[in-house]
């Protein structure tokens, strides 16, 4: 083995260039791959990168885009708040109360692993056709992974921290804010990164089936008319948003710890 990996941290020190340069290389490689695939399959099957960028610019500058984006953004923001805060509270509580955690964990894992898309008629029947169904669909996708990450992180906190907190007679809220959250921040951020992506997915799926507005609706329209350029352009937009958010959370995580630059 040329490179032996004793510790992941050591690898970082050994890498010659900054990760920013690597990301640029990767970005260029993906663009080239995309272009080659487009040449092989034909531009009507896979739109080429320049054509997709032009299409995206056209979609964004179209007058009705602001309305669609606002609709999706509103539902997504509400769903995100529910997923992240709700998941965090559930996860911290279940991690702190050992028995409750043991009772709930297999149930949460089972809920996480069922194909939630089959539940979409139930959500529609419960919440009706409207923004609340979209929010609910987004939230049920995001809340469980956030809760599972937070719960497992709290369980792995060293007992000394919690004993100290109890010795100081902190209230539950104080324990959560001053002990649990700081001690589990990396896992919470990891949960948030996944939760962000899955909530966006859930909101979009909700829009695809049960809406007349929003980016999900635009996607369904494009699918039904086999408008590949629009599909690719919107997919590019979503990947950009989600990747930026994921990268920002990663930065936040590293910034809070004050270690290596990313």
């Amino acid at each position, binding site marked *: 083995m040329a*490179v*032996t*990996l*004793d*510790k*992941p941290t050591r*690898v*970082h020190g050994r*890498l010659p260039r900054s990760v920013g340069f*690597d990301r640029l*290389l*990767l970005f260029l490689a993906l663009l080239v791959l995309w272009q080659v695939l487009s040449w092989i*399959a034909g531009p009507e*099957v*896979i739109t080429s990168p320049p054509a997709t960028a032009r299409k995206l610019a056209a979609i964004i500058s179209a007058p009705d885009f602001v309305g669609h984006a606002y609709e999706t953004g509103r539902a997504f923001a509400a769903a995100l708040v529910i997923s992240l805060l709700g998941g965090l509270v559930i996860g911290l509580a279940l991690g702190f109360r050992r028995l409750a955690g*043991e*009772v*709930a964990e297999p*149930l949460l894992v*089972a809920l*996480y*692993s*069922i*194909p*939630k*898309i*089959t*539940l*979409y*008629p*139930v959500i529609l*029947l*419960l919440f009706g056709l409207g923004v609340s169904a979209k929010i609910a669909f987004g939230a049920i996708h995001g809340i469980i992974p956030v809760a599972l990450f937070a719960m497992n992180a709290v369980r792995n906190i060293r007992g000394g921290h919690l004993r100290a907190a109890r010795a100081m007679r902190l209230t539950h809220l104080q324990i959560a804010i001053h002990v649990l959250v700081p001690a589990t921040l990396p896992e919470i951020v990891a949960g948030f*990164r*996944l939760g*962000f*992506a*899955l909530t*966006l*997915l859930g909101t979009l*799926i909700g829009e*695809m*089936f049960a809406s007349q507005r929003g980016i999900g609706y635009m*996607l*369904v329209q*494009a*699918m039904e008319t*086999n408008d*590949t350029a629009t*599909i690719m352009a*919107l*997919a590019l937009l*979503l*990947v950009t*948003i*989600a*990747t930026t*958010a*994921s990268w920002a959370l*990663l930065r936040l995580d590293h910034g809070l710890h004050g270690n290596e630059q990313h």
Partner: protein
Amino acid sequence: MSRAGFIRFLVVAVAIVVLEIACRAGLIDPITIIPPSGMAAGAWKLIVSGRYTEDILLTLGSVALAAMLAIVGGFGLGYCLFRLPRLRRALDPLLASYYAVPTFIFYPLFIVLFGLNRLPLVAIGFMFAVIAMAINTLTGFERVPPVLRRTARALRLSAPTALVQITMPACAPYLFTGVKLVIAYSFIGVIAGEFVLSGAGIGHQIAFAYNNFDNPTMYGLMLLLISFVSGLNMLLFVWERRFYRRRGLT
């Protein structure tokens, strides 16, 4: 049964009974949710009538193919990323945001590429599941204790032997998690695809029943599907436990 297991059983049982009573008492509109006994009856009727057997087998076949491809492909991808830490670090934000894009929006594209058959659905299930397997494989490999790697080197094991006899057992929990996610995600991918644009399969039949207000069929199919996925996960869980016990890991 452990105390937690007993409480869990009680919680689920009470929830089902409460739902049953609420439905029977008319607190919940039967157009919205039918009582659990009605769902079970619906599911039983589906199996006995055999009307949906073809759709169920079709979906299960597609899911099985997608899941197998995703397990093999995801494991290979995870291993490659592990051996290429530079690529892995650069790819990190993309891996986390991969799941924000509903893969099934590419269904029209896959139909053009693969033709109007089950392959586009398999491709959606595969695309949806493969990254989960890759991420878990990667995390597992990274968490293998250095002492085990050193042992492998001290014993002068060849790379494939070390992989099969040391690395893979050491990261088994992550691999099991990956496989469980692959099963869930390939179901999601295939069924979501069937929901949107297919003329057959469980997803199509659920959407069809929903559009026709045929609640016993819709809830029956959902119940069958969810029980099947949960049962499969449970089997994996039992196998995983047995695997750890045999290795003295619990």
